[in-house]
């Protein structure tokens, strides 16, 4: 796609004005064979959340003091919701912006880190290539990493995929607010599997999630879909320290310990840390299933109060217990995810959601076709008179329009049936062979034509019109 015009919204979108839903407790009492406009089209919540995402993507900052662009990234808008200049996790100033790439027109999230140590070569970025190679739906993809002087001093800039309207797990479930989402066991299992799915890939590539495994850094991008964000930052920030440690180790240990080995050892330690962090994240989330006043106490006493299944408590105990070098993610998966069918139930849920989205998408694609079709009809239906054949054809289209839109009950009252319009236009669009009876307005004559024939007529009339145009 090309770069879109950046929107300039001065006003908030009024979603409720778009296609108003019924008031609360309004009961339409629809029978199974009945429908209404909101059922015929995309569900309100899905439309609204998608629309909000669009809006978030397009949001611009009218009077910005930010740099015009950083590298190829322009139109920066700060999107950090914490407004804390210093990151609680990395303990150095950091902020995040949305920006559009001048190269591909897509929006990206820019992480700016005001690093406190000099960067003189690419070594701090050595893991970034590995991170870039990970394509995992539970990890926010890193696109680029560089240092920039655009903010007046040297800052590290990391470029990630942008997920509009995403939220940290902390904001989503915990931070005080009215829109906090309830945590259920089902959600916990789903998070567990998603994180493990990310860890599988990360660990396999000899990396560790490190600071990304944190309620503040795991983001919720869609309904119950989470992604580890800010990956690779720990690797960069920790580079200096690691270097030092390695230096020390190498000095202490004998020559047989190669550099390579020590890195592996180190990574293994970090990966074990990841597992512990996973345990911590899950435990913190599990606590949210309890009322505020019951959340304090030691692990073992609290765990008894959680109304969660034995299966899940076992997971919590394992991950929060003594995680040793021997811990194997594979074995863990076998024992705690496969044997109780949690993996397959995630597969089911994902297939269902993708089916649902596909059906919604096809409805909307259908609407696009129907709109174009009805536009064509409107273009041709009342054009001034032409030769007899064209007039005759146009007359048939008029009768067809009457057939779809102007129905009357036995007392002559007009009937509005949206479903009839949709289905008839669909049949026309598909050009099926079904025949319909079109009666003239004076009810003296009639014609029997198929949807296919009508479609052909519309096609030819429309072509006629546009050929005039393009002549």
């Amino acid at each position, binding site marked *: 796609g090309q770069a879109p015009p950046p929107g300039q919204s001065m006003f908030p979108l009024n979603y409720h004005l778009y296609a108003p839903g019924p008031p609360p407790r309004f009961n339409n009492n629809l029978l199974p*064979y009945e429908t209404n406009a909101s059922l015929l089209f995309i569900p309100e919540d899905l439309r609204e959340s998608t629309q909000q995402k669009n809006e978030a993507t397009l949001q611009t900052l009218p009077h910005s003091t930010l740099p015009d662009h950083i590298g190829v990234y322009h139109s920066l808008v700060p999107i950090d919701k914490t407004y804390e200049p210093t990151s609680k996790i990395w303990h150095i100033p950091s902020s995040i912006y949305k920006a559009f790439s001048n190269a591909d027109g897509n929006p990206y999230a820019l992480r700016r880190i005001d690093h406190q140590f000099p960067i003189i070569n690419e070594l701090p970025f050595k893991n970034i290539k590995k991170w870039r190679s990970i394509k995992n739906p539970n990890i926010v993809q890193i696109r680029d990493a560089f240092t920039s002087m655009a903010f007046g001093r040297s800052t590290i800039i990391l470029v990630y995929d942008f997920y509009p309207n995403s939220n940290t797990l902390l904001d989503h479930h915990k931070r005080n607010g009215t829109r906090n989402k309830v945590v259920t066991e089902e959600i916990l299992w789903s998070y567990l599997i998603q994180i493990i799915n990310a860890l599988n890939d990360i660990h396999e590539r000899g990396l560790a999630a490190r600071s990304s495994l944190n309620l503040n850094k795991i983001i919720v991008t869609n309904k119950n879909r989470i992604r580890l964000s800010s990956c690779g930052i720990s690797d960069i920030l920790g580079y200096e320290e690691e270097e030092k440690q390695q230096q020390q180790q190498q000095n202490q240990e004998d020559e047989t310990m190669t550099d390579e080995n020590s890195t592996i050892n180190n990574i293994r330690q970090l990966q074990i840390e990841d597992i512990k962090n996973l345990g911590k994240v899950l435990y913190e989330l599990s606590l949210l299933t309890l009322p505020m006043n019951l959340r304090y106490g030691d692990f073992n006493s609290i765990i008894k109060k959680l109304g969660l299944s034995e299966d899940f408590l076992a997971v919590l105990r394992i991950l929060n217990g003594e995680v040793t070098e021997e811990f194997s993610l594979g074995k863990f998966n076998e024992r705690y995810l496969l044997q109780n069918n949690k993996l397959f139930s995630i597969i089911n849920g994902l297939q269902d959601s993708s089916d649902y989205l596909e059906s919604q998408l096809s409805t909307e694609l259908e609407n696009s076709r129907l709109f174009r079709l009805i536009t064509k009809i409107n273009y041709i239906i009342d054009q001034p008179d032409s030769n007899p054949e064209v007039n005759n054809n146009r007359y048939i289209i008029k009768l067809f329009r009457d057939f779809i839109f*102007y129905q009357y009950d*036995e007392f002559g009252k007009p009937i509005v049936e949206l479903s009839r319009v949709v289905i008839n236009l669909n049949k026309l669009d598909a050009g099926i062979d079904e025949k319909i*009876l079109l009666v003239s307005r004076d009810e003296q004559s009639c014609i029997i034509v198929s949807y296919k024939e009508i479609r052909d007529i519309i096609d030819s009339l429309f072509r006629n019109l546009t050929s005039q145009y393009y002549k």
Partner: protein
Amino acid sequence: SSKTFVSYPPPLDQPDTTISPMYGPYSIDENIPLSTVGMPFYKDQLLSGFPYELSFTKELARIQTQIDPELLIESEKTKGFIPYDKVKYGPRNIYKRYQSLNDNKSGGSTYDGKILPKFISEQKNSSKSLRKTISNSSIDSDNPIEKDKDKDKDNEDTNNNSSIFQYKPNQPGNKVPNCYSILQIQYSKFGVRDFDFSFYNKTEYCGLENHIDNSYINALLQLYRFQPEFHYLVLGNLLKEWLPNDYNTIINNKNPQGSSILNELGYLFDMMEKAKGKNVNISNFTQILSMNEIIKSKGLINVNECQTLNSKDLRNLITMFNEVLINQLNQDFFIQTQSKPLSSLMGIPYELEIKSSSKACLINEKSGGLMFNLDLITPPSNALNQYAVVINNKWNNQSNIINPNTTKKNITIVTYLEYSVNQFRSVPCQQSHSHQFPHNLEIRKSIVSLPSLLSINVNLSSTEFKLINSFEQWLLPEFYVFNNNNSSNNPLSFRQNVSQLENPKNYLKYELVGFVCEISHQSDSATGFHNLVSFIKTGGEWYLFNNFLVMPIPQEEVFNLSSNWKKPVVLLYNSSDISSNKFEYFHSETFAKIPSLNSSILYRDHFAGTIRESYKKEYELLTEQEAPEFGSIVAIDAEFVNLAPDEFEIRYTGDKKLIKPKVLSLARLSIIRGEDGPKFGKAFIDDYIVHTNEIHDYLTNFSGIEPGDLDPIKSQKNLTTLQTTYRKLWLLLNMGIVFVGHGLYNDFRGINIQVPSNQIRDTAEFFYKSSYKRQLSLKFLAYILLKEKVQTGNHDSIEDAYTALLLYRKYLDLLAQGQFEDTLSN
């Protein structure tokens, strides 16, 4: 908006100038998202929203409206636009309301906008009403007060569009009024007995059930039943005995019942009389029809409720049947009584003359004959216009094409009759000499005189019927005929009314008895949407008979033929000289004393095929001294075999719907003496019935009948033909005998005989406890009340009849002692 238009050029108010955004240009089919174009800021609801309270019917839930096949055919012939008949096909783009197909609970539901009854078992006080209808015998079922209530309700209903009795035409969309519907019997888990026939018939005249082979003839049978002379002839024939039982009849002629169409029609008429306002089915009659070689060879058997017939097919079928029926009855009369009473009642003498137009050809034949139906013919338009004023002067050349617009509106059936009784035709001579001199033969067929009972077949084409629709009053309640014997050219002349008569004395008045009418619910070429009803005048009132629906109907509706869905196909007129005869029905008090009655079959054996005296006899024949008397008691039990199983539709949930009930056939009938005396409880009838066709299930556990028992060759039982046994029962019934038995509704329905409730004492009814909702079994009752164990092995009808007899006595005892209620509740 109160804006008004002003003349060009525009006033000071200026349109806004906007810079067109740079979108596009896009062609309509270009694959860009429509959201590429932005929205302006808005602070009100968008126009595109639909109110949430507006609900629609899903288009795909609707049943597709079919395009009328006539229009389809027409449109295939002509490209482009074709004429549209609004009256026939209804207004354009008419909205069809949603119709639910969910008829799992057919009771009380609406079908096609009609209110239909609930099953009896589902009605209020269900146990009571089920009991009432199931038992033909319970005394309170004829409670006059209840009947009146029903009538009041009914009167309210007839004006309602959803009432089944709704008869007014000109419904929206040219819909056929409800009373002419193609009716369906619904079966609950209790079977046909649970269907509320009484909902459809509040009159004292019996309706006939459909859902049986050949039920298309119901309308015609009703018509003949209400003609007194015909009814009298057919019913009177039953007094004589005609019971062929030889191998030739049973095996070679494939008539195991040993019966005739004439006899079965007599029994049917008798049943219909006795049934009063209840429903009757024609099962025995249709069985005889289905075995009749002529009926079969003419293709008059119909087993699928005419579902594959179009309008024309159905008219062919019923008119042909009318012809064959009367011929067969006439023959049966001759075989059984050596007389031909129908010939004098209905015979139409005609003369046939064939003359050559050429002198070279010597053909000149004159012959005569007798036929039973007059086939009505539409006069050619020039004949029609002898009576009519030619409206369109340009009309001259296409003289044989009927054009309703050019034909006068006041033409009646009399014009048609006058033409039909005297026909000429020219055909090329086929003789060998005609090669040299091609010439024509002139054929003339003329009716000599009209009989007292005139049956007219109106088997015209759809176009001809359209013409009839256009006449103001084509069908006449009466007309006058002058029999001019002397004039061979024009022996009969017709007049519409008295004022036209030159000499009233010479004229015979013909009155319409009634007519069979074809109702087309869709266009003529559609199959399965046509049914037959009859309009019949009796007791000075007109009634509509639509199978089991019977209702009074105003005369103006009867004679209103302006709608094209209504086609009279068989008309029955009788002359005033006989219509004054009042037919006297059999009375059971005096029946036995009718001089011509032959009741000898009650006192003798009449085994089928060969002499079977040697076989074990469990009965002792009645003697003349024991001749049944009015009111005397007998006990009865019948056993049946199953010719075809129940056909169900079953859902995985266990819901079960009976589509076609099983076909039972009488296999054994036992009747025992019920009056005190030395022979009390001794059987006097114990007949096994001959069956030669395949039996699906002998039901041995219930019937005690074993394979081979009913086979006329292998059987070791005392076999009789069905008609022999039926006649015995019929004689007892008419003599006023009272029948005791257990669960007699099913027995009598299976035998296909109508027993008035005052001649039934049903122990299943007496010992019925409403809280059980089911009748108690004979076995159970015998064990509780009589301390006897019965039915230890297979059922035996003599034993069962005897047990029922004892139960009846016990009932009378308990009643006399005032202990009945106590016993019942224990």
